[in-house]
């Protein structure tokens, strides 16, 4: 390098926006705590067969509604099943429902939103009105209707959640596409001869990943609650397979006599949902361009 090189570079090596966000996220303690909680729950869910002390479906007439003890840390339920084992296995249903349904919702909603925002005109009007109409129906009612229509099963509950959540992603992606469409760099990309699909997929999409990631994280928290609600109503995970929502459903009859039946799945939902929200907030801060100067 010549000694007369121009002004010193602000950074030696290019730091991608993603790396910078990661670095800032790692300094965000509360979000990091939420992230660790999620990691623990995901690990437990994946390792359920090895972590769960008992078969979650094995009933026992000698251990009905026993309070937490050394043998059954979280107690047993009305059929003598181990609550800890059911919470562990239930984590699979809940986390999967949350993550898969949101991925699905984003997979449906983002392309539609990008197309609507980019195409504009009649297509945009039609797609946007459909999304608005879906958003105007209370979310749980729509999910219940869809789940009831599709039939009670965890997969159907996930599909119902995905469909009800997708308009949120349509709106978000459409708004971001509209913003992007007016930017100089999209104009420059057009001047370089990029076809429209390439601008949407390769130029705009990477720029809207941050808000999508934040939205998805927060949506997972909501989807977990939605799955719990649908399971509570008997439209999600079907007995005897455990999910946190269905456990709460059967616990309601014993709230006074056996509160541990409700406390542990309830606490699990609370912790996971809280953690996803904390991570979502952390991501939002990490991606916030206004927090740049530090």
């Amino acid at each position, binding site marked *: 390098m010549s000694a007369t090189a121009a002004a010193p570079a602000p*950074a030696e*090596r290019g*730091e991608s926006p993603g790396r910078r966000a990661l670095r800032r996220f790692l300094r965000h303690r509360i979000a990091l705590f939420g992230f660790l909680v999620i990691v623990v729950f995901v690990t437990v869910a994946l390792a359920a067969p090895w972590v769960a002390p008992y078969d979650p479906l094995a009933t026992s007439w000698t251990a009905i509604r026993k309070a937490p003890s050394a043998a059954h840390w979280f107690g047993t339920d009305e059929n003598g099943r181990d609550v800890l084992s059911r919470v562990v296995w239930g984590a699979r249903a809940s986390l999967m429902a949350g993550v898969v349904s949101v991925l699905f919702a984003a997979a449906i909603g983002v392309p539609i939103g990008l197309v609507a925002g980019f195409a504009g005109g009649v297509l945009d009007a039609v797609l946007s009105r459909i999304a608005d109409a879906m958003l105007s129906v209370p979310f749980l009612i729509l999910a219940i209707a869809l789940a009831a229509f599709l039939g009670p099963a965890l997969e159907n509950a996930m599909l119902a959640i995905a469909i009800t959540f997708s308009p949120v992603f349509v709106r978000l992606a459409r708004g971001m596409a509209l913003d992007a469409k007016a930017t100089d760099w999209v104009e420059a990309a*057009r001047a370089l*001869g990029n076809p429209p699909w390439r601008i949407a997929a390769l130029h705009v999409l*990477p*720029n809207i990943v941050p808000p999508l990631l934040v939205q998805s994280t927060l949506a997972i928290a909501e989807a977990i609650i939605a799955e719990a609600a649908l399971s509570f109503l008997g439209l999600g995970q079907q007995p005897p397979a455990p999910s946190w929502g269905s456990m709460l459903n059967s616990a309601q009859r014993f709230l006074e006599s056996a509160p541990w039946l409700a406390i542990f799945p309830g606490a699990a939902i609370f912790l996971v949902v809280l953690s996803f929200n904390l991570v979502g907030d952390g991501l939002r801060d990490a991606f916030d361009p206004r927090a740049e100067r530090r």
Partner: protein
Amino acid sequence: MSAPPALEVRGLAAEFLTDRGPLRAVDGVSFAVAPGRTLAIVGESGCGKSVTALAIMGLLPPHVRVSGSIRLAGREIATLPPEERRRLRGAEMAMVFQEPMTSLNPAFTAGEQVAEALRLHQGLSRREAFARAVEMLAHVRIPDAARRARQYPHQLSGGMRQRVMIAMALACRPRLLLADEPTTALDVTVQAQILALIDELKRETGTAVVLITHDLGVVADHADEVVVMYAGRIAERAPAAALFALPQHPYTVGLLGAAPRLGRAAGGRLASIEGAVPDMARPPPGCRFAPRCPFRIARCAEEAPPLAEVAPGHASACWRAPLESVLEAAA
């Protein structure tokens, strides 16, 4: 002349459909640029300079009606289907925009963005294109190009980003470069460097340059020919030297009077042109400059003057051109 000009525009018009009716932002603009030459389009904001450039590129939104002939190296491109038109962009003709700070995609490195043109039009692989992009960045005098190529736009200065934009535009060696106020957003010292760079690359590659600016100093130093636009029409078209020596349109005379110059008597005020640009949705019936023109005659308000030659290669749209006698009388 045997070879066709790199760009020849005939009767170009662009009509915006607005709530108040059609608005002709560009009306009957004609000019030509030979390979390796620079044509400057001058005029104040809203005179149709940028719309002209966007119309040539085919980048105006679909609700704008563009008519007239646009020939790129003799080939008519105005009537091409959008898909074929798109393939010319970045390959045969390219554009550099006014705002280097926002014209680069924040999510990609400088090198990736230059490489994209090559991947799009020359089908190079990611690796080959990036290597060529680093060469291009070095070519536009970015020091330590290999390292800069891996940096993101927010890590580059304004002048550096405009160099990256120029590298992107020239990566595929287009016949035509449209530079829309490429230096307006930059520091004065950087401005001179960027314009010198464009000149140099033009000489090297034979690219024709259309330089859009409102800075007459830039025109004097860098243009071979000048088109002065007013309210969507060409007021005057002339070789640069002739324009400055003997302006043949009252608007040009006004512009030259309004340009700041070193060595002018201190304390003197810059001349200004009285009045304002006409409402483009309801332009005056005759000469569009007539309401502001100090030399207007009755005919000016009734009949629009055609662009007519007053000297070889020097055309003016003024009923009173040639202006020598008029100017003498006024002085």
